[in-house]
């Protein structure tokens, strides 16, 4: 029983667990943007756990794997943002109305579907 193997197993199981949870989220959440939220967890934490475990198991590859983790942390948000923009542009107005509570990208004009919370009287 080696310490290194225990550490590798712990890091890899964190990664695999996050991966499983986020793919359950991608399968069950109701619309694209919520799925994007679940996907972001797998895109950074899950995969970097698994990759880091491989790097710890093979010390020769550790530098490359850390570089790959940095790459994931840079590219994950880029991919998520690009895909969200595309999903927003492809959606029809009715779908946007159903999905978004607060439409920020509509030419500076902001609509809210629900009434804003009542402000309490000052004092």
């Amino acid at each position, binding site marked *: 029983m080696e310490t290194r193997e225990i550490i590798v197993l712990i890091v*890899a199981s964190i990664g695999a667990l996050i991966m499983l949870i986020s793919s359950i989220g991608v399968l069950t959440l109701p619309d694209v943007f919520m799925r994007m939220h679940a996907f972001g967890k797998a895109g950074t934490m*899950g995969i970097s756990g698994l990759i880091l*475990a491989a790097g710890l198991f093979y010390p020769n590859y550790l530098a490359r794997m850390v570089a790959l983790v940095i790459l994931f942390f840079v590219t994950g948000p880029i991919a998520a943002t690009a895909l969200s*923009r*595309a999903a927003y542009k492809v959606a029809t107005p009715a779908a946007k109305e159903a999905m978004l509570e607060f439409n920020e990208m509509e030419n500076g004009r902001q609509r809210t579907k629900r009434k804003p919370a009542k402000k309490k009287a000052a004092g």
Partner: protein
Amino acid sequence: MNWFDAGIDILLVMLTLSFLLGSLRLIKGPDVPNRALAFDLITLQAVGIVALIAIRHDAPMLLDIAMVAAVLGFVGTVLVARYLEQARDGE
């Protein structure tokens, strides 16, 4: 029985299960952005599975494959997203 190999096997089963869930979303996904999202998720899970197999079978050269697959998955996702935006703009 080697407990370390057994643990890695359990993690491989978990990852394969999540791979199947991701493919279900890829099949079901009502429109293109959903499918692109599911494809990106599946690519990441394939990278994870390759990394675990590299640990399990003492084959560190598989990690190079994992690196290339990761970069290609990212490029593919951004390409699909860009294509969707431009197609909408052109109309």
